[in-house]
Protein backbone atom coordinates (compact mmCIF):
# COMPACT_ATOMS: atom_id res chain seq x y z
CA UNK A 1 0.00 0.00 0.00
CA UNK A 2 1.00 3.60 -0.33
CA UNK A 3 -0.31 7.03 0.53
CA UNK A 4 0.64 9.91 -1.77
CA UNK A 5 -0.57 13.40 -1.10
CA UNK A 6 -0.03 16.98 -2.23
CA UNK A 7 -0.57 19.65 0.43
CA UNK A 8 -1.20 23.35 -0.09
CA UNK A 9 -0.65 24.21 3.59
CA UNK A 10 2.24 23.61 6.03
CA UNK A 11 2.52 20.14 7.56
CA UNK A 12 4.56 18.68 10.41
CA UNK A 13 6.38 15.68 8.91
CA UNK A 14 7.10 13.75 12.12
CA UNK A 15 3.54 14.17 13.31
CA UNK A 16 2.32 12.88 9.93
CA UNK A 17 4.66 9.93 10.15
CA UNK A 18 3.50 9.04 13.64
CA UNK A 19 -0.19 9.42 12.77
CA UNK A 20 0.18 7.34 9.60
CA UNK A 21 1.93 4.55 11.50
CA UNK A 22 -0.63 4.65 14.31
CA UNK A 23 -3.38 4.11 11.73
CA UNK A 24 -1.75 0.86 10.54
CA UNK A 25 -2.30 -1.56 13.44
CA UNK A 26 -2.31 -4.52 11.05
CA UNK A 27 1.33 -3.77 10.25
CA UNK A 28 2.47 -3.71 13.87
CA UNK A 29 5.03 -6.45 14.39
CA UNK A 30 5.55 -6.94 10.65
CA UNK A 31 7.93 -4.09 10.00
CA UNK A 32 11.39 -4.03 11.50
CA UNK A 33 12.58 -0.95 9.64
CA UNK A 34 11.25 2.52 8.96
CA UNK A 35 13.30 4.96 6.91
CA UNK A 36 12.24 8.53 6.31
CA UNK A 37 13.47 11.60 4.49
CA UNK A 38 12.31 15.16 5.11
CA UNK A 39 13.24 17.97 2.75
CA UNK A 40 12.82 21.51 4.13
CA UNK A 41 13.17 24.99 2.71
CA UNK A 42 16.52 26.57 3.54
CA UNK A 43 16.82 30.31 4.11
CA UNK A 44 19.68 30.46 1.57
CA UNK A 45 20.42 29.13 -1.91
CA UNK A 46 23.35 29.68 -4.28
CA UNK A 47 24.91 32.17 -1.90
CA UNK A 48 21.85 34.34 -1.40
CA UNK A 49 19.22 34.65 1.30
CA UNK A 50 15.83 33.22 0.37
CA UNK A 51 12.68 34.55 2.04
CA UNK A 52 10.13 32.22 0.45
CA UNK A 53 9.31 29.91 -2.40
CA UNK A 54 6.39 29.09 -4.64
CA UNK A 55 6.01 25.49 -5.76
CA UNK A 56 4.21 25.11 -9.07
CA UNK A 57 3.16 21.67 -10.31
CA UNK A 58 1.32 19.94 -13.13
CA UNK A 59 -1.98 18.81 -11.57
CA UNK A 60 -2.76 15.26 -12.60
CA UNK A 61 0.66 14.42 -13.98
CA UNK A 62 2.31 15.02 -10.61
CA UNK A 63 0.06 12.53 -8.80
CA UNK A 64 0.44 10.01 -11.62
CA UNK A 65 4.24 10.29 -11.67
CA UNK A 66 4.51 9.93 -7.89
CA UNK A 67 2.30 6.82 -7.96
CA UNK A 68 4.42 5.34 -10.77
CA UNK A 69 7.63 6.02 -8.85
CA UNK A 70 6.33 4.24 -5.74
CA UNK A 71 5.07 1.33 -7.88
CA UNK A 72 8.47 1.04 -9.56
CA UNK A 73 10.24 1.07 -6.19
CA UNK A 74 8.03 -1.79 -5.05
CA UNK A 75 9.28 -3.90 -7.96
CA UNK A 76 12.81 -3.58 -6.60
CA UNK A 77 12.39 -3.58 -2.83
CA UNK A 78 9.84 -5.49 -0.73
CA UNK A 79 8.31 -2.82 1.48
CA UNK A 80 5.03 -2.87 3.38
CA UNK A 81 4.01 0.77 3.28
CA UNK A 82 5.06 4.05 1.70
CA UNK A 83 4.05 7.57 2.65
CA UNK A 84 4.80 10.53 0.38
CA UNK A 85 3.64 14.07 1.17
CA UNK A 86 4.75 17.01 -0.99
CA UNK A 87 3.95 20.69 -0.57
CA UNK A 88 2.63 22.92 -3.34
CA UNK A 89 1.96 26.65 -3.30
CA UNK A 90 3.66 29.30 -1.16
CA UNK A 91 6.28 28.00 1.29
CA UNK A 92 8.29 29.78 3.99
CA UNK A 93 11.83 28.97 5.17
CA UNK A 94 12.06 26.09 7.67
CA UNK A 95 8.79 24.53 6.45
CA UNK A 96 8.84 20.94 5.21
CA UNK A 97 8.64 20.56 1.43
CA UNK A 98 8.58 16.77 1.18
CA UNK A 99 8.30 13.67 3.36
CA UNK A 100 9.07 10.17 2.09
CA UNK A 101 8.78 7.28 4.55
CA UNK A 102 9.06 3.54 3.99
CA UNK A 103 8.11 0.66 6.29
CA UNK A 104 9.67 -2.73 5.56
CA UNK A 105 10.71 -5.93 7.27
CA UNK A 106 14.43 -5.13 7.00
CA UNK A 107 16.52 -1.96 6.83
CA UNK A 108 18.01 -2.52 3.38
CA UNK A 109 14.70 -2.18 1.57
CA UNK A 110 13.62 0.74 3.77
CA UNK A 111 16.81 2.76 3.22
CA UNK A 112 17.13 1.97 -0.47
CA UNK A 113 13.50 2.46 -1.46
CA UNK A 114 13.30 5.74 0.47
CA UNK A 115 16.46 7.05 -1.21
CA UNK A 116 15.45 5.89 -4.67
CA UNK A 117 11.93 7.33 -4.43
CA UNK A 118 13.37 10.66 -3.31
CA UNK A 119 15.88 10.80 -6.18
CA UNK A 120 13.27 9.80 -8.75
CA UNK A 121 10.86 12.39 -7.38
CA UNK A 122 13.51 15.09 -7.74
CA UNK A 123 14.40 13.94 -11.25
CA UNK A 124 10.96 13.48 -12.74
CA UNK A 125 7.97 14.67 -10.68
CA UNK A 126 6.68 17.84 -12.39
CA UNK A 127 7.28 20.43 -9.69
CA UNK A 128 9.03 23.78 -10.21
CA UNK A 129 10.44 26.07 -7.52
CA UNK A 130 10.39 29.84 -7.74
CA UNK A 131 12.38 31.54 -5.01
CA UNK A 132 11.69 34.93 -3.51
CA UNK A 133 14.77 36.87 -2.37
CA UNK A 134 14.62 39.33 0.57
CA UNK A 135 14.31 42.36 -1.72
CA UNK A 136 11.26 40.79 -3.31
CA UNK A 137 13.00 39.66 -6.48
CA UNK A 138 11.88 36.25 -7.75
CA UNK A 139 13.86 33.64 -9.64
CA UNK A 140 13.20 30.14 -10.91
CA UNK A 141 15.42 27.40 -9.53
CA UNK A 142 17.14 26.13 -12.68
CA UNK A 143 18.10 22.63 -11.59
CA UNK A 144 18.37 20.39 -8.55
CA UNK A 145 21.68 19.60 -6.92
CA UNK A 146 23.01 16.05 -7.36
CA UNK A 147 21.83 13.64 -4.70
CA UNK A 148 24.81 11.30 -4.97
Amino acid at each position, binding site marked *: MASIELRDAPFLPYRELEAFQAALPELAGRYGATASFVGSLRDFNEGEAVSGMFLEHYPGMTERRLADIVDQAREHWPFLEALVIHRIGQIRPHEAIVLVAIWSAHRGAAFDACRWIMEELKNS*APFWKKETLPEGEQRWVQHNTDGY
Partner: protein
Amino acid sequence: MSIRVRYFASLRETLGRNEESLSAEGIATVSDVWRCVSGGKPLPDHLLCAVNMEYSEAGTAVRDGDEVAFFPPVTGG
Protein backbone atom coordinates in the same frame (compact mmCIF):
# COMPACT_ATOMS: atom_id res chain seq x y z
CA MET B 1 -7.13 17.70 -35.30
CA SER B 2 -7.41 19.51 -31.97
CA ILE B 3 -4.63 19.44 -29.36
CA ARG B 4 -4.60 21.07 -25.92
CA VAL B 5 -1.13 22.52 -25.38
CA ARG B 6 0.00 23.46 -21.86
CA TYR B 7 3.04 25.32 -20.53
CA PHE B 8 4.53 25.43 -17.05
CA ALA B 9 6.93 27.45 -14.90
CA SER B 10 9.49 29.69 -16.64
CA LEU B 11 8.28 28.63 -20.09
CA ARG B 12 4.72 29.66 -19.20
CA GLU B 13 6.02 33.07 -18.12
CA THR B 14 8.22 33.50 -21.18
CA LEU B 15 5.34 32.70 -23.53
CA GLY B 16 2.83 34.70 -21.47
CA ARG B 17 0.17 31.94 -21.55
CA ASN B 18 -0.77 28.79 -19.66
CA GLU B 19 -2.28 26.86 -22.49
CA GLU B 20 -3.88 27.03 -25.88
CA SER B 21 -5.93 24.91 -28.19
CA LEU B 22 -4.26 23.96 -31.43
CA SER B 23 -6.42 23.14 -34.41
CA ALA B 24 -4.33 22.31 -37.42
CA GLU B 25 -3.80 19.60 -39.96
CA GLY B 26 -0.50 17.89 -40.60
CA ILE B 27 0.48 17.52 -36.94
CA ALA B 28 1.92 14.06 -36.35
CA THR B 29 4.41 14.44 -33.50
CA VAL B 30 5.29 16.48 -30.40
CA SER B 31 7.88 18.43 -32.39
CA ASP B 32 5.17 19.34 -34.94
CA VAL B 33 3.07 20.72 -32.09
CA TRP B 34 5.99 22.83 -30.86
CA ARG B 35 6.68 24.11 -34.35
CA CYS B 36 3.05 25.21 -34.70
CA VAL B 37 2.89 27.06 -31.38
CA SER B 38 6.36 28.63 -31.62
CA GLY B 39 6.13 30.02 -35.12
CA GLY B 40 8.24 27.35 -36.77
CA LYS B 41 11.07 26.92 -34.28
CA PRO B 42 12.62 23.52 -33.47
CA LEU B 43 11.97 22.12 -30.00
CA PRO B 44 14.79 23.32 -27.68
CA ASP B 45 16.90 20.50 -26.20
CA HIS B 46 16.43 21.62 -22.61
CA LEU B 47 12.61 21.52 -22.69
CA LEU B 48 10.74 18.46 -21.43
CA CYS B 49 7.50 17.31 -22.99
CA ALA B 50 4.59 15.12 -22.00
CA VAL B 51 1.68 13.66 -23.95
CA ASN B 52 -1.42 12.95 -21.86
CA MET B 53 0.69 13.43 -18.70
CA GLU B 54 3.36 10.86 -19.64
CA TYR B 55 6.92 11.95 -20.47
CA SER B 56 7.46 11.90 -24.21
CA GLU B 57 10.07 12.61 -26.85
CA ALA B 58 10.05 15.07 -29.74
CA GLY B 59 9.13 12.22 -32.08
CA THR B 60 6.24 10.86 -30.00
CA ALA B 61 3.03 10.64 -32.04
CA VAL B 62 0.08 12.84 -31.10
CA ARG B 63 -3.58 12.24 -31.88
CA ASP B 64 -6.75 14.28 -31.96
CA GLY B 65 -7.81 15.21 -28.43
CA ASP B 66 -4.37 14.72 -26.85
CA GLU B 67 -2.94 17.02 -24.19
CA VAL B 68 0.66 18.01 -24.90
CA ALA B 69 2.71 19.85 -22.26
CA PHE B 70 6.07 21.61 -22.49
CA PHE B 71 8.12 22.61 -19.46
CA PRO B 72 11.65 23.27 -18.17
CA PRO B 73 13.62 20.74 -16.05
CA VAL B 74 11.76 19.86 -12.86
CA THR B 75 13.00 21.08 -9.46
CA GLY B 76 10.77 19.55 -6.78
CA GLY B 77 11.63 17.76 -3.56
